[in-house]
């Protein structure tokens, strides 16, 4: 009896609180022009092929691949005391776990100039590599940066290095929108958001100096709520980052935003950064439908007023809440010409769209021309969730997170849900 009532309740659920909104989709302009093939459970453009090279390795976050084909995966939480897993692919296309080390969870991992850099949620370490790019002494990393802020929200410290001896570290804001009370309905923004002093930006440190603190680094760019995916664009010699846009416009300001607007806005943004840039969080967000920088409601905005301040424009904008966790500029020769120097983006998948259907759980390709995004983004690898129903409900089987390019020009995609590593190759 009760069950029947509950089921009836669930069935009627979709009827409530839908007072708004045009029926068309939200500026979601991705186009699938090519035929797709199914491979290892993924949907890919014709000519591509996926293999699962490893499974159940733990919460696989970012990934780095050596020229010799060793694969370093950073785990969000150490498994059996090992937070970095080393995989090696066999001839059969399956990878075996070669070793593991580093008793700390985290996200960032990157190889540069004979060192493997890896981050916990507070520190950055580096490990010296031998001439085969193997870690020489896994038990004695150098502590490069320590004491970065971790207040349980946006805590991951993604890392990348440039060609001039600098390390870039994301320090995410420990807040949604710098309200007096985080995520509280109607709570206004803190004046001169103090979080930005130590978070909500990208910090630059020396790549080879030990035990650096905030004071040793430079706040390279600010006004970035949380960056997980980032990469150094070698063609432009410039840092590109993917920002996770703010959540809950409707929950916090129900009089200003409908449920549907809240599901669609704001954009997840790609920024091309220069030293000193300010992307505007928490004072603004980017509205990908109006194509405008909009003043945040916590700071006097109403969904229409444009932001006041010297804030940079995004290089590209994507629909809201899809959580871009990985960014990779493709420099290989294996894929067709159009992919060269373009960007792959791993969208971890949304949660903040409910009760609207969830979205994401795919890898997107953003074409570039002359160093700028050019043309519409397209879904490159889809169906990580397992099915359309899984995507809609948010119960995804796999959640794409990290991206890396292998020596042969294949790309690797990690999944921090089931601990799967996918390899995607192009077969002519």
């Amino acid at each position, binding site marked *: *009896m*009760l*069950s029947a*009532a*509950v*089921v009836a*309740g*669930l*069935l*009627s*659920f*979709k009827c*409530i*609180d839908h007072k708004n909104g045009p*029926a068309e*989709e939200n500026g979601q302009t991705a186009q699938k022009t090519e035929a797709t093939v199914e491979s290892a459970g993924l949907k890919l453009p014709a000519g591509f092929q996926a293999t699962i090279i490893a499974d159940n390795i733990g919460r696989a976050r970012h990934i780095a691949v050596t020229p010799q084909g060793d694969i370093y995966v950073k785990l*969000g939480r150490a498994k059996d005391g090992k937070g970095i897993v080393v995989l090696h692919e066999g001839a059969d296309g399956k990878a075996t776990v070669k070793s593991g080390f580093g008793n700390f969870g985290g996200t960032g991992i990157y190889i540069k100039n004979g060192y493997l850099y890896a981050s916990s949620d507070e520190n950055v370490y580096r490990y010296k590599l031998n001439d085969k790019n193997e870690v020489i002494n896994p038990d004695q990393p150098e502590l490069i940066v320590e004491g970065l802020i971790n207040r*349980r*929200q946006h*805590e991951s410290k993604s890392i990348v290095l440039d060609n001039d001896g600098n390390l870039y570290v994301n320090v995410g804001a420990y807040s949604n929108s710098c309200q007096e*009370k*985080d*995520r*509280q*309905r*109607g*709570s206004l923004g803190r004046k001169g958001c103090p979080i930005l002093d130590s978070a909500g930006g990208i910090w630059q440190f020396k790549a080879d100096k030990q035990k650096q603190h905030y004071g040793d680094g430079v706040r390279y760019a600010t006004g970035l709520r949380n960056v997980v995916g980032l990469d150094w664009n070698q063609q432009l010699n410039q840092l590109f980052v993917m920002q996770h846009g703010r*959540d*809950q416009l*409707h*929950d916090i300001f*129900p009089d200003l935003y409908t449920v549907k607007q*809240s599901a669609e806005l704001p954009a997840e943004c790609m920024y091309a950064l220069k030293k000193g840039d300010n992307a505007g969080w928490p004072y603004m967000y980017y509205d990908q439908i109006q194509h405008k920088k909009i003043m945040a409601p916590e700071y006097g905005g109403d969904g229409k007023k444009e932001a006041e301040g010297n804030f940079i424009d995004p290089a590209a904008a994507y629909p809201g809440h899809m959580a871009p966790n990985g960014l990779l500029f493709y420099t290989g020769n294996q894929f067709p010409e159009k992919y060269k120097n373009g960007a792959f983006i791993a969208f971890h998948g949304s*949660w*903040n769209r*409910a*009760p609207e*259907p969830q979205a994401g759980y795919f890898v997107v390709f953003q074409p570039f021309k002359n160093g700028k995004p050019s043309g519409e983004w397209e879904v490159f690898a889809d169906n990580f969730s397992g*099915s*359309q*129903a*899984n*995507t*809609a*409900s*948010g*119960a995804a089987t796999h*959640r794409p997170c990290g991206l890396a390019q292998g020596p042969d020009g294949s790309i690797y995609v990690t999944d921090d*849900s089931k601990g799967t590593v996918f390899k995607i190759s192009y077969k002519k």
Partner: protein
Amino acid sequence: MRAIFKTAIIAAAVSTTLTAAAQHKSKTKSGSKAAKSSALISAATLANGQKVYGQSCITCHMVTGLGVPNMNPPLAGSPFVTGDKTKLIKIVLNGLSEDVEVNGQTYSNNMPSQDYLKDQDIADVLTYVRNNFGNKATAVTASEVKALRGKK
């Protein structure tokens, strides 16, 4: 496209509920006392609870009550939901800014205070989540909520 998505969500939610309900049935054959008290919960209470859930809870805890891995804890099968009512009411009134562990998994997102809701709305939504998503527990009353307002 959208219609397909919605149908899929509903199907997923229904199957979750049915599975949970079936499991529950086999577990508590002799628990007639709990069943009796649940049976007293009115349809109006559940309907209002569902409405409040859709307005104030659904973004984080999701249509399915399953939450979001590592971030927002599930309500389905959670001892926080079906257990001590005082603790549960206080979470809704005061929010929660610490890591919580539910069934071996940790969740870290901040939950804001929902104290702008009326006593009756909090009571109804808690009764609803205690008796939905496969959960089964006693109702929460407005007076129980009222008694805990302002108490940390």
